[in-house]
């Protein structure tokens, strides 16, 4: 690889509006990208999903994994020139943990009880229970560090202004069209960022996004679907980007209510799924089969439990056993965004038909879905990014105290396995615990996870240093640079 060149403007296409740049309130990928440019976390994830320093350079814990100490870089500065010290970090986490702020990070940064500034560059986290994955958790997308004055003052000002420590500074922001950032000369790494300027253009239409990349109007498309990927693949001047990932679409059961509180019925349905075909229907082959656990090869501690295959006879038998010898009719709800959700529903409908399960698909607007179905419904389609660790995804969705326990699955044994795995750093021990947890999920099927998707993107060949991230919501554009072949554009 050649050495990075400095300068130039990078144009990035996003498929959704950047509705919010309040770094504690971001909820979707484009917003994560925007705040990633403007702010920093304590830690960040490499494209190999390893934790690396961001504002913090080093960290260590006590043996019980209940007290963690982080060391900050020296001489950190916010965009307005004010120094960034441990006091700012403390204030930030106080804001994140304050329920009134309603930050999505609150449930995702770990079991923090208290955070203190030991000295201007040293922080101490005290946890309520042992937690081995804290450094990874602190890389969470909406746990970005903001100035104490803002965190304790006018948090709302973060909706239109930004004062972070990130590699770029905010120039202009129109939620539905364009956000422009420029290089932060005071960034902690004097070499980075390489780009002078980044423009984030919003293209609500996926076709327009792809066409604009082809025409050279756009340099980088953050995420694209399989069909657009195939269209771009092999085109002159365009590189397609692909990373295997733990991203998935699933079918959630309300395990607390009939009919899906009967594991036989859940299993019967899982047995109707032709996972090979599902990978095709949903990802055009850009994905991998799922085995009804949220963990796949992309995660550490993945356990290759016996793959569940389609077996209509077994499904029919289970169905009869569960008291539905003549089949059952159920309503499956999918929100309209992204389209993948209804694709899964439609395909499942067809596959389950043969076993005598009649599925009526109901698609509804995303807002209504969030309001009325999500975490409340008893049979609906979910969609998740890859999380940094197995613990993160289990704690997010499947433990009884999960932040978003969509299935209301309440399995003390599973809870215990996850809890014990948190409390140790011993790889063998954790492997054993997580393997057991995955086997338990496959057996109990709180949710059908039929396939995982690769993360797909595309760029012009004059963009270098950019790698697509399996997490799906991490971009690391401070590493990207433009080669001499890039068109010159007025800034």
């Amino acid at each position, binding site marked *: 690889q050649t050495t990075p060149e400095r300068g130039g403007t990078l144009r990035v296409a996003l498929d959704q509006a950047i509705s919010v740049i309040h770094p504690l309130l971001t909820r979707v990928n484009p917003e994560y990208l925007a705040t990633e440019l403007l702010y920093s976390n304590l830690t960040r994830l490499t494209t190999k999903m390893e934790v690396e320093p961001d504002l913090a350079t080093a960290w260590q814990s006590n043996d019980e994994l209940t007290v963690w100490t982080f060391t900050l870089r020296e001489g950190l500065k916010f965009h307005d020139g004010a120094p960034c010290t441990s006091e700012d970090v403390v204030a930030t986490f106080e804001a994140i943990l304050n329920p009134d702020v309603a930050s999505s990070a609150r449930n995702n940064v770990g079991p923090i009880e208290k955070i203190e500034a030991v000295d201007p560059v040293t922080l101490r986290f005290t946890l309520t229970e042992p937690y081995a994955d804290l450094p990874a958790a602190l890389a969470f997308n909406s746990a970005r560090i903001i100035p104490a004055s803002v965190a304790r003052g006018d948090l709302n000002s973060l909706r239109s202004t930004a004062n972070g420590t990130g590699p770029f500074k905010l120039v202009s922001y129109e939620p539905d069209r364009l956000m422009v950032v420029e290089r932060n000369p005071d960034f902690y790494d004097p070499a980075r960022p390489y780009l002078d300027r980044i423009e984030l253009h919003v293209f609500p239409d996926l076709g327009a996004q792809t066409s604009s990349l082809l025409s050279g109007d756009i340099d980088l498309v953050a995420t694209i679907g399989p069909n657009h990927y195939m269209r771009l693949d092999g085109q002159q001047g365009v590189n397609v980007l692909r990373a295997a990932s733990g991203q998935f679409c699933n079918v959630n059961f309300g395990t607390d209510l009939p009919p899906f509180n009967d594991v036989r019925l859940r299993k019967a349905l899982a047995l109707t799924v032709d996972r090979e075909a599902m990978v095709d229907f949903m990802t055009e082959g850009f994905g991998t089969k799922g085995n009804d656990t949220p963990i796949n090869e992309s995660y550490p501690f993945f356990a290759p439990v016996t793959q569940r295959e389609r077996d209509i006879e077994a499904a029919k038998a289970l169905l009869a056993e569960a008291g539905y010898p003549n089949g059952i009719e159920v309503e499956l709800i999918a929100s309209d965004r992204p389209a993948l959700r209804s694709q899964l529903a439609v395909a499942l409908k067809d596959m389950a038909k043969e076993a005598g399960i009649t599925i009526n698909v109901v*698609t509804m607007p995303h807002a209504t879905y969030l309001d009325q179905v999500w975490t409340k419904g008893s049979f609906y389609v979910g969609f998740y990014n890859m999380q940094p660790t197995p613990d993160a995804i289990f704690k997010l969705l499947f433990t009884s105290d999960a932040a978003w326990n969509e299935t209301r699955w309440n399995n003390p044994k599973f809870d215990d396995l996850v809890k014990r795995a948190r409390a140790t750093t011993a790889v063998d021990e954790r492997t054993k615990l997580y393997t057991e947890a995955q086997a338990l999920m496959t057996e109990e099927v709180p949710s059908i996870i039929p396939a995982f998707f690769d993360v797909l993107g595309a760029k012009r060949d004059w963009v270098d240093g950019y790698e697509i991230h399996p997490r799906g919501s991490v971009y690391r554009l401070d590493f990207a640079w433009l080669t001499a072949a890039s068109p010159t554009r007025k800034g």
Partner: protein
Amino acid sequence: MIDFLRRLLRTPQGLLGCLIVGLILIAVLAGRWLTPYGPEDMQSLARYKPPSLAHWLGTDQYGRDILSRLLEGARSTVLMALLATVIGTLGGAILGTGSAYLGGRADELIMRTVDAVMAIPSLLLALLVVSLLGSSSLNALLAIAIAFMPSMARIARAVALTVRKQEYVSAAIARGEGSGYIILREMLPNVIAPIVVEMTIRVSFAVMLFATLSFLGLGAQPPATDWGLMVSEARDFLHRSYWILLWPSAAIALTAIGFNLLGDGLRDALNPRT
């Protein structure tokens, strides 16, 4: 009636319109029995197949037969559009004729309010109504019906006013006829003809509005066989399998053209001057 049909078929628009609309109505009525495949049957081995003998119009991303889906979709799309137009027209016609009959302040108030509602573009009005009721074909139907009412009311009122001024209505009033007889027997038959013309042309708007709502994700929902939804879903595959997009688009356009032509034909046939 026979005479009228002959007049209608004599105009080129009328003839062509009747032909197209006739074909579409056959699809609507008998489509279910004409389909070679189940409209929702997926074949994972026959995805993205171009038109062939086995699949005349090809297959889509799930390996479903497009012809079967189009035939099945005719019912949802065209029937819904027809119903929406009829409901919207009836509502508007009653409002407009009533307003014209009431006259005076009431008329003024009704018509000004109707004008005011017309300041909201019909697509937007439909969007608002759908988001109010939830997105489904049925609600889209209602939304379109509501969106059509103001302009239909305006047209109906204008027609009713001219009819009201006719001497045969004066004659009926002078004769001492009751208002029921005057509205139903003297006015309505004469108001209806121009409204039927307008209604026919509006069916094509409705088809397109319906498709647009589905396109925006606020009309029919997958796996419905709605044409607009089919187009919307197919846009991603345009560069790979253009036919998935082509056929439903063509179906929408053909339907719209058919009803437009038929409407113009009806207008000519009903126009005493030609």
